[in-house]
């Protein structure tokens, strides 16, 4: 049955939408202002790409984000699936472990965890990937946990295995696609976090997109807002792309079948 929205519901939704959208519109408008009453212009956006270090910083952050996503997928999906199946008794423990990064200050994490890092990683920016995995854990765990609660996981796993699939195929062909929206959400959170994290990068003296953006923002106030809007827009485009990839794939598969 389709739920009917009451007038009160509509007011709340409108208020929430305004609360989220208004600052974005304001930021977009502000970032397009020209200096000295010159009206609106895209000059602040073209200014971004002309700044020294833009491409290396962005590419570094994108590489870090991609590797972080990969580690999150490999580490978190099997772990959360495991605690939903055979490892129920470890559920509380895993939940607590995943919540720890919220209560541990980032400074402690940066200093303490770096000591435990292999020497070969300590001097490269890829070290940040592991920190970002830890920082993303609370959000990723919760998102995947909710997704797995919404499907009959044990039945799907048993069905897949009875049809001849091993664990890897069951994970990649059944479980991850079955909780696609949760997986997408978890990836999006990880991507956004990796792309926007500043404190760890600056504490460990790495040049990522956020540290570069902070530096160049001091030269152009409108440009700094333009960087924020661009980053946010990029994250949204990424979300839309990963949300639509499976649909595009299935559309192609259907066309292929028809052909």
């Amino acid at each position, binding site marked *: 049955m389709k739920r009917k929205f009451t007038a009160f519901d509509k007011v709340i939704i409108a208020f929430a939408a305004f609360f989220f959208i208004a600052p974005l519109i304001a930021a977009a408008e502000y970032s397009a202002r020209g200096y000295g009453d010159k009206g609106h212009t895209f000059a602040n956006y073209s200014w971004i790409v002309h700044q020294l270090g833009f491409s290396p910083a962005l590419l570094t952050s994108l590489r870090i984000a991609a590797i972080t996503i990969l580690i999150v997928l490999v580490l978190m999906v099997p772990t959360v699936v495991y605690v939903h199946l055979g490892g129920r008794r470890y559920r509380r423990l895993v939940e607590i472990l995943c919540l720890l990064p919220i209560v541990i200050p980032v400074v402690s994490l940066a200093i303490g965890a770096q000591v435990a890092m292999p020497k070969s990683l300590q001097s490269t920016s890829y070290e940040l990937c592991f920190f970002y995995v830890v920082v993303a854990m609370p959000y990723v765990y919760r998102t995947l946990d909710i997704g797995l609660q919404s*499907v*009959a996981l044990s*039945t*799907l796993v*048993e*069905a*897949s*295995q*009875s*049809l*001849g*699939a*091993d664990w890897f*195929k069951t994970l990649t*062909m*059944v479980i991850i*696609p*079955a909780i*696609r929206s949760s997986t997408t959400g978890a990836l999006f959170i990880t991507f956004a976090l990796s792309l926007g994290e500043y404190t760890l990068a600056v504490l460990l003296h790495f040049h990522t997109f956020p540290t570069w953006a902070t530096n160049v923002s001091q030269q152009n106030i409108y440009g700094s807002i333009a960087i924020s809007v661009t980053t946010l827009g990029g994250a949204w485009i990424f979300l839309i792309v990963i949300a639509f990839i*499976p649909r595009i794939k*299935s559309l192609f598969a*259907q066309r292929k*079948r028809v052909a």
Partner: protein
Amino acid sequence: MDLHGSTVEFRNVKRTFGTVKALDDFSLTIKPGELVTLLGPSGCGKTTALRILAGIDKEHEGIVEIDGKDMSQVPANKRNIGMVFQAYSLFPNMTAIENVAYGLRVRGVDSHKRESRARELLDLVGLSTQADRRPTQLSGGQQQRVALARALAIEPSVLLLDEPLSALDAQVRAQLREEIRRIQSTIGISTLFVTHDQEEAMAISDRVGVMNKGVLEQIDEPGKLYNKPRTPFVAGFVGLTNYIPAVTESKSLVLVLSQSLEISDHSPAVKKGDEVRALIRPEEFEVQKADEGATVITKSFLGPVTRLGIDVGTPDLIYAEITSKEAKKIDTGDFVRLSISSDAVMIEHV
């Protein structure tokens, strides 16, 4: 499609959960192409037996063989067993045809072959027009049909059906069980069906095994199981049974409702004067209108037969079934005379 029917054998299989014996020395042989049903109340161990055969439950003692090959070291995904689950188990991210083709896909069968085979199976279950629908766009009955097609697509050596009809409404359930039987007979696959619904079990099985507290109490053809139960539990669980207080006259005779009857072979040993309960089916009574005697309290029309609830002075009403034509002469409140028509009755100790 013509599958090779395999022989399945459970030998002295035991499985415990804590202190509870889910399977206690369970032995069963399924002949090639046979449909065997395990019937019993919740917690009797029937699903445990099925899961052990599927390889999902490995914590058991005893031997499970398929075509003489010991399965104890073979993982679930290597057993080549098709399974239909009680819960809707279609992969939500795939269409009906993708679900059916899944088992072939993981086996690396090329896309053209697997699509044509999936279509063939969807056709077999009458869903060829629904191939591109997702599970959420299919009814419960359609989803279980797709699940059946998916299980058969891999050409399994054994088909396992774990209460696949229990979530469906009565009409769809009756229709689908006939379809399952038709398909199973057509392709000749050895099948283990698990249910707690005796009507379902009796309707489609070659043999039915009745389970109680982890023990296979009796396995027989449906007719034999109903007419010649070997234990009081089977007599009570399969069909409707009246438990009537009675007294033994000797080791082989019992007095029930003033009628002397032979005690059946599978009853427990008794001596003269023992107070027992006689287990009598409703259709084993003959009911005649009388001027005095037992009183008809309830009358339920069940189509070709009518069930009468009769007060004979025992704590519970006795239920007798007579043809609806005969029942026209009898109304509630009438006096009737009851006689038992069976040659031998099963008894149990009080």
